[in-house]
C-alpha cells in the first residue's frame, strides 16, 4: 500500500492544476454545506438551549377548559400531586421529576434603588421549584434553598452581626406568619400569638430568588429602552437585595388583610426559572400558599418538570406523558425545532446538490485525466499493477482531492462565519438573545463535511477508475 501511496502523491503533484480546477466545485459546495449547517446548529442551540430548553418538558394537568364567551372555564382539577409525580418518574427516559408550584397569593417586589437610581415596585409573579433543578445555575457565593425562619432568635443590630451572605438583620416574622402549616392567615382569623417571639431585630435568611435569562434579555432588549434605564450585566446584578411583600398588591381588590414582608436576594439566573417573574425555592411558595389560601396547597403542584435523558427522546417521553393522562405545556419549542430542522434541511439539500454537481465535474475531470494518462496506466499494468491497483490509485487520488477540498471548504465556511459574526456585532443592533456567534462548528460537523467531500469525490471517480482499470495495456502500449 505504501508503494501506491507514493504513486498517488507523485500523480497528485504532477496533475495538480487539473485537480485544483476539479476541486473548486467541491470547495464551494462543502463551504456552503458547513456554513448553513453550522448556522442552523448555532441558531438551534440558542433557540432550544436558551429560549426553549428542550431537554425538559413541563407537564400540566389535562385541560378540560370550556370557552364561555370571553371566558374560559376550567371544568376539572388544575393541580398535580405526589402520585402524578411518581407516575411521571416511571416513564422511560425520564431521569428526574421536579414539582413546580405557582404563588397563588398577590405579592409585590420593591427595591433596586442602587441599580436603577429609584426604588421600583412591581406586582410579582412567582413560581416555586425544587432547588435541585437549578443547583448548577446558582452562584457559589449564594444558596438557593428553603430556610425556615420561624424560629430565628439570634439578636442583631446590623447585617454584619449576622455574618453570612444569606443572612440579614431584620424584624422577626410577624405573628400571622408563624402559624403552623395548614392554617390560614385570612382576614377573620387572627394569627396565633407566639409566646417567646423576640421583640428586637433578629438574623433572618434572605428569600433566595432566581430569574430567567429570558427576563434579562427582555429587559435589555426592550424595557430599558422604553424607560431609559441602564443595561444590565447579569454578573453585576447577582446579589441584588429587595423587599418581598407577600399578600400585598397594587390592585386594591386583590390585596390581603395581612402581609408578610421578607427580604429577597437574587442568587442566580437559570433557563429553568419562570420566563416572566421570579422563581423561589418550592418551600417558600408552598408555605405562602398554605398560609394565605388552602391548607392542602403544600401537596398539590401546578406543573411538574420532567427531565429527559436526551433531546432525541423528548418526543417519546411527551407521548408517554399524554398516555399517562397529562398534557405537555406548549413552550413553542417543538415549532421552533421544526422550523430550524426545515431550515437546515433546505439549505443542507441545496449544499448537497452543489456538492453533487461538483462530483459530476470531478467525474469529467477524471475521465479526461485517464484519457491523457492511458500510456502511464498501460506502463503500470505492464510492470505489474493489477486492475485493483489502478482502481485504488484513481480512487485514492480522488479521496485526497476530496479531503483537501473538504478542509479548504470548511476553512472557508469558518472564515465566512467569522466575517458574518463581525458584521453582526458591529452593525446589527442588540436584540433579545443576540448571540456572540450564530454558528456552531462541532467536531462532528467538521468531520461530516470533510467526509462528504471525500465521499462525493470518490463517488465521482468510481466510473473513471473502473474505466482505467479496464484499459487494455496491450492496446495502449503497442497499439495492437
Amino acid at each position, binding site marked *: *500500500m*505504501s*508503494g*501506491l501511496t*507514493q*504513486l498517488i502523491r*507523485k*500523480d497528485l*503533484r*504532477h496533475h495538480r492544476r487539473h485537480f485544483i480546477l476539479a476541486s473548486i466545485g467541491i470547495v464551494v459546495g462543502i463551504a456552503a454545506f458547513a456554513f448553513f449547517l453550522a448556522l442552523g446548529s448555532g441558531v438551534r442551540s440558542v433557540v432550544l438551549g436558551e429560549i426553549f430548553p428542550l431537554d425538559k418538558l413541563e407537564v400540566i394537568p389535562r385541560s378540560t377548559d370550556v370557552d364561555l364567551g370571553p371566558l374560559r372555564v376550567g371544568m376539572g382539577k388544575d393541580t398535580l400531586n405526589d402520585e402524578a409525580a411518581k407516575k411521571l418518574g416511571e416513564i422511560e427516559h425520564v431521569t428526574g421529576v421536579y414539582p413546580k408550584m405557582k404563588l397563588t397569593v398577590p405579592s409585590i417586589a420593591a427595591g433596586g434603588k442602587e441599580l436603577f437610581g429609584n426604588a421600583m415596585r412591581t406586582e410579582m409573579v412567582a413560581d416555586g421549584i425544587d432547588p435541585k433543578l437549578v443547583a448548577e445555575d446558582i452562584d457559589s457565593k449564594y444558596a438557593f434553598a428553603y430556610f425556615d425562619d420561624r424560629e430565628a432568635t439570634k439578636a442583631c443590630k446590623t447585617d454584619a452581626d449576622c455574618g453570612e451572605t444569606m443572612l440579614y438583620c431584620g424584624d422577626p416574622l410577624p405573628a400571622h406568619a408563624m402559624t403552623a402549616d395548614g392554617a390560614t392567615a385570612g382576614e377573620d382569623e387572627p394569627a396565633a400569638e407566639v409566646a417567646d417571639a423576640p421583640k428586637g431585630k433578629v438574623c433572618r435568611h434572605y428569600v433566595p430568588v432566581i430569574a430567567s435569562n429570558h427576563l434579562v434579555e427582555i429587559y435589555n432588549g426592550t424595557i430599558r429602552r422604553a424607560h431609559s434605564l441602564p443595561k444590565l450585566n447579569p454578573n453585576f446584578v447577582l446579589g441584588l437585595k429587595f423587599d418581598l411583600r407577600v399578600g400585598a398588591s397594587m390592585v386594591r381588590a386583590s390585596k390581603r388583610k395581612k402581609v408578610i414582608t421578607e427580604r429577597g436576594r437574587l442568587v442566580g439566573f437559570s433557563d429553568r426559572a419562570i420566563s416572566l417573574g421570579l422563581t423561589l425555592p418550592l418551600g417558600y411558595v408552598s408555605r405562602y400558599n398554605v398560609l394565605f389560601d388552602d391548607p392542602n396547597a403544600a401537596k398539590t403542584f401546578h406543573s411538574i418538570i420532567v427531565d429527559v435523558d436526551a433531546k432525541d427522546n423528548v418526543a417519546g417521553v411527551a407521548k408517554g406523558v399524554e398516555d399517562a393522562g397529562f398534557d405537555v405545556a406548549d413552550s413553542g419549542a417543538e415549532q421552533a425545532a421544526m422550523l430550524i430542522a426545515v431550515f437546515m434541511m433546505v439549505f443542507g439539500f441545496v449544499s448537497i446538490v452543489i456538492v453533487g454537481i461538483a462530483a459530476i465535474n470531478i467525474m469529467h475531470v477524471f475521465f479526461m485525466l485517464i484519457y491523457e494518462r492511458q*500510456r*502511464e496506466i*498501460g*506502463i*503500470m*499494468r*505492464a*510492470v*505489474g*499493477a*493489477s*486492475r*485493483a*491497483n489502478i482502481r485504488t490509485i484513481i480512487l485514492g487520488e480522488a479521496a485526497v482531492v476530496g479531503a483537501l477540498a473538504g478542509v479548504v471548504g470548511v476553512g472557508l465556511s469558518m472564515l465566512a462565519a467569522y466575517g458574518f459574526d463581525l458584521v453582526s456585532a458591529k452593525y446589527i443592533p442588540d436584540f433579545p438573545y443576540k448571540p456572540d456567534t450564530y454558528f456552531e462548528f462541532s467536531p462532528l460537523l467538521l468531520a461530516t463535511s470533510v467526509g462528504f467531500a471525500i465521499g462525493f469525490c470518490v463517488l465521482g471517480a468510481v466510473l473513471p477508475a473502473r474505466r482505467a482499470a479496464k484499459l*487494455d*495495456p*496491450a492496446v495502449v*502500449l*503497442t*497499439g*495492437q
Partner: protein
Amino acid sequence: MIRLSGVHKTYRTGQTSLEVLKGVDLEIGDGEFVSIIGRSGSGKTTLLNIIGGLDSDYTGKVEVEGRKLSEMSDRDLSRYRNRHIGFVFQSFHLLGHMTCLENVILPSLFNGGDGGLSEKQAQDRGLELLAQMDLADKAHARPIHLSGGQKQRIAIARALLHKPELLICDEPTGNLDRDSGDAILKLFSQLNERDGITLIIVTHDDIIAEAAARVVRIVEGNVVEDRRSEPNKNVDTSTSQREESA
C-alpha cells in the same frame, strides 16, 4: 519453459474481423535467446503481448512453467508480469514526471507487500542497475534530459529490477541510432549468457534477428520458419532496415 499451442487471435472492429495469429505452436526453453521476426502486421507483437500476459483475449493454450496463463486471475497475471517478466518497448515507455531511479523502481511499488523488495532494497537495486547501465549519474534526472540509448537502458534497468527469468523486447532498437542499438544488443547478449535470462526479441529486421541463437519467422499469423544458428555477436545495426519511430 514457455509453450504455445494452437494460439489464435482475432481483432474485431464492428462487422470486420482480422485474424492475426492462426494457430501458433511454439516452445521456448529456459535461457534461450529468440528473435521473432516478421513484417509489420504479421502478428509478432501480438504474440509477444500474449506471452507477456498483456493480452489475454485469445484462444489456444499458453503455458509458462506449466501454468496456463488463461486460467490465471488478473492478480496472478499481474504478479507474473511483476516478478517473472521484464518488458522493453520500442518507445521506452518511461514516466516523464518521475526521475530515472523512480522509473527503475516502479515495479517495486506493486509488490503489494507480497515478499517483494522493500523500499530500501528497491532503491539499492535500482542504483545498482543504473550503475550497470553506466547511468549512475542520471539517477535523479528526468527521462526528458536523456538520449534515446540512455532512455532504453533505463527501460532495461526497470525490466531487470526483479531479476526476471524472461525479458520480452518489442523492437528494442527501433528508435535508436546505430551505436546505441549495437550497445543494447550487446547488453542483451550479456544478460542472456551471463545471467541466463530467457530473451525474446521482436523485430522486423533480419540483421538484428541474427543476434539471437534462434530465429522464428512469422508470416500472416503463421510460424513459417524456426531455425537455430550461431548468434552473431557483432551485429552492425547500421546495415539494418529501420522502421519509423513510433
